[in-house]
């Protein structure tokens, strides 16, 4: 496997521009990862203050998305990138979208964390949430890691991880449904848990998209609907 490199352009400026969108995407990824961790922490600790923070911080992620998109448009207009450069730029515009959506989902989780913290101290659904949250956090971390190294093999492995998350999600849904049938008083709480699970599953899908983009950049092959 040839190592992906976005250097050695005849115009040094182009190298710098590509490097810049890459670093900024990584930065955004880090920020989104942090948001996700905080949101999950807010649920497990019933920490509404932390949840508020997450909701506020989402704006900065939106701003990052707009910034990176602008930078990509400028590169396309100025440099007319081709081949791997073109794939990278296209990938970044899409990945930025996925990351922003992950940020949105994190904010939703934080919203539910606030609602959950105001209710009674029941532990219904927590194990399921914790289990999936761990897998999804790992998934996102692996995806961002694969992007940082342009490692398509790692990306493919991460895609496979997502299938496991989907399975876990179905299992968790069934368990939460069981809780609702057992104890109708816990329905409102269980619904919130459902939304959180749903958000986590979506985050897994976005992380998977990210990995598919990485494969596209590295191998020039579109594996989205294979």
């Amino acid at each position, binding site marked *: 496997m040839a190592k992906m490199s976005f250097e*050695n352009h005849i115009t040094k400026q182009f190298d710098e521009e590509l490097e810049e969108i890459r670093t900024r995407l990584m930065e955004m990824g880090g920020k989104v990862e942090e948001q996700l961790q905080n949101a999950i922490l807010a649920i497990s600790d019933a920490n509404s203050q932390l949840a508020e923070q997450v909701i506020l911080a989402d704006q900065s992620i939106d701003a990052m998305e707009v910034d990176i998109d602008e930078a990509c448009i400028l590169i396309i207009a100025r440099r007319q990138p*081709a081949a791997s450069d073109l794939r990278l730029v296209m990938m970044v515009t899409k990945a930025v979208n996925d990351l922003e959506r992950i940020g949105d989902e994190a904010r939703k989780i934080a919203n539910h964390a606030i609602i959950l913290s105001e209710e009674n101290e029941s532990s219904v659904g927590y194990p399921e949430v914790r289990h999936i949250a761990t897998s999804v956090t790992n998934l996102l971390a692996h995806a961002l890691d694969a992007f940082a190294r342009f490692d398509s093999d790692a990306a493919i492995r991460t895609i496979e991880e997502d299938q496991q998350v989907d399975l876990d999600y179905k299992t968790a849904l069934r368990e939460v449904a069981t809780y609702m049938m057992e104890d109708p008083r816990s329905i409102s709480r269980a619904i919130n848990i459902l939304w959180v699970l749903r958000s986590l599953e979506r985050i897994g899908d976005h992380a998977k998209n990210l990995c598919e983009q990485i494969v596209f950049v590295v191998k020039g092959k579109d594996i989205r609907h294979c």
Partner: protein
Amino acid sequence: MKLKSEQALELDESHVTVGQSFCDDPKMTMRNVDVFYSDKQAIYDVNIDIAKNEVIAMIGPSGCGKSTFLRTLNRMNDTVEGCRVDGQICMDGQDLYSPKLDVVELRARVGMVFQKPNPFPKSIRDNVTYGPKIHGLADTRVDLDEILEKSLRKAGLWEEVKDRLDQPGTGLSGGQQQRLCIARAIAVSPEVILMDEPCSALDPIATAKIEELIKELSQNFTIAIVTHSMQQAARVSHRTAYFHLGKLIEVNPTEQVFTMPKHQLTEAYITGRFG
């Protein structure tokens, strides 16, 4: 046009042409073509087919042999002192370099448009009808006028010049001159049109008109175009061939070459890196 293809994802560093060089129903075929200028070899062992009604673009850095290659297709290299062509170049199965073939006939079948617009310093009419006249394609003045109008229409120039056919062709703008040259080339009804950087001396609007024209012409003609503008190759051609230091590195459908070229050298060239 159906191309034989094989899939490979990795970038290839060997000096064997990668990609889809051959096609099922070729208009022209080149096998093991070497070109020498005196002692210097300009082209090394090129194998490629050009399909019927295809637009094939030749790209590559300066001095990579793409123009030389183009000029072997209608033997314009014959005029260069000390130029030698080895290997086999055929059109419709007929060897272009066989002594039986008259080069004048070949050039009537394979027209050429040059880098700098080069209309004759004569009237627009004379420019277009010169070819038909010397080849005896028209018996009467009426026939000639018909060819004149048809060619100018195909070249998209008729509306602009129909009222001044007897004014000098050199008085037109650069883009119009180049379209006049295209009209002159198609007036002898060639089967193949070779274009050697046809837009390098033109402004973007004139360039866009020529590109539009190339798209239209590809319905009736086979077109081989050499260009320095990769975007142009990407816009007008069906297949793109990348030359590097006299070797044919890669031939592939244009969309593939510009999104995921197979060869590392092609990748380096089209992304603007040091190859």
